[in-house]
């Protein structure tokens, strides 16, 4: 995957927020993997908890944002809770915002 497309996908996904935490899913560490091969993007995504009613909306948003990136022809979004998400996956900025580690 080219660095340009990877950076563009990351930027696009930063427009998607977890509504309850109120922070973008990239810095929250919800995106476990983002791969592109021949214009086909595969995103492995998680949420704070399985069964969250926002899950389908997050999936749809991730699909739409990834598809909007130049050079992406198809997108597959897969949800996983293995391994389960934990606040340790947050970026340093997100951790500081939520006071994780205080």
């Amino acid at each position: 995957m080219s660095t340009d497309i990877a950076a563009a996908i990351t930027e696009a996904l930063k427009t998607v927020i977890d509504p309850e935490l109120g922070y973008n899913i990239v810095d929250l560490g919800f995106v476990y993997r983002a791969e592109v091969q021949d214009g086909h993007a595969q995103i492995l995504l998680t949420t704070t908890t399985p069964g969250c009613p926002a899950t389908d909306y997050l999936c749809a948003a991730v699909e739409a944002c990834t598809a909007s990136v130049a050079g992406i022809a198809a997108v597959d979004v897969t949800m996983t809770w293995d391994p389960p998400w934990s606040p340790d996956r947050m970026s340093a900025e997100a951790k500081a915002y939520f006071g994780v580690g205080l």
Partner: protein
Amino acid sequence: MFKMMGSAISRWTMPHFAAAIVFFIAAQIAMIAGISYPSAPLAAPMTLAAVHLLTIGWLTILMLGALHQFVPVITAQPNAAGRSALVSLVAILVGLGAMETGFVALEGRLAHAAVLALPAGGLLVLAGAIAACASLGRTLWRARPLPFAARFVAIGLVFLFATIVLGILMSLVLSRPDLMPWPRVISHGLQLHLMAGLIGWFTLTAIGVSYRLLTMFTLAPEERGPLGTAVLLLCAGGRAATWLSSVADAAGAALPAAVIAAAAAVTGLGLALYLIDMVRLYRGRRRHKLELNTGMALPALIAFALCIPLAIRIAVLGRAGTLGGPLAYLLLFGGLSGLGLSQLYKIVPFLTWLERYGRVLGKQPVPRVQDLVDERRDRPWFVLYFAAVALGTVFGLLGRPLLWRAAILAHLIASLMIFRALWLVRRRAPLIVHPPAFAAPSLQRSNSA
């Protein structure tokens, strides 16, 4: 492409909440107006009318509405509620209306024949509970082995049925004493009905829901370890043992009082361990700053804690006549309603967000759930609510019914203002819409705005 993974929004949860709120206001007005306890005796028909507005109208409908949404979340299963949730709500509303008619007739304010509306209403409430549990039970069944929090809910639902069936039995004896001359059903049944409802249905379910919601909202560890297991075993086992031994006693088995007392003590120990685990949960949370819903769950938990010494005092001194009212008040208004109000403050905005903004997420800037409420504006009403309940409990213990009613007026005003805040969530678009590139500095700016 993606496969649908999350639990859908339960479309009948919000109507449940709306109905419950109306009954909560009505119950408080009845108490302030002096037509029920604390002005009338605890067992007076009009007190029973007000109490059932609170227990069925407010707490049961609130909890069932919440469970229709959160059992699928707790169990990570698709929502199975569908129309059965609506059928359940309608049956309970009509049933409660009939029960209220029956209580008024029992007071002598309507033709005596109308007393039969009491068991008829009870049967409708039972039908409503069956309709609700048909979908909730199906979801729980699919999720076997049940997750930790769901186990409390499953046991709570069993006690819901025990409560209703006992209530119907007592209402039959009250309405047709000529056909059913069984005074023992009333003398023993009332205590069993109270125990099954207050501790079995309300408290165990609240424990389960609080474990799930508070870990989720505070980012605390979900795994509760041996302490959580002890809470489940002691609360559920103790409650079942207390209830069954009391049933045996009522049926004439002549059990030693120590057996029932020991079973009750086990439940009390379980509740105490639950509160200790809640302290552990809050201390172990990863989300340092508490939001209003998680912050205001704390006084509700303190109310639960204060119920324990009061219950012990009643058990040791046998002063249920003077302490029973304040204890039930503290549990119903401080613990259960306090927890309900504080979590409604998060659940209503969250469900509203999903309805309004879920479909446009990632396509246009959207607010956060927190942007739908104004915590600074609403915090004083929560403080007033809990302060009024604390004062009401003290006035109840001191035997000052007029001051107690004044305290109820204060928490009625507070709850009305909290409900107004929820109404605004449903009515208004948020004032703040954050830029799409969401980062900490912009959040901090908007929070301080």
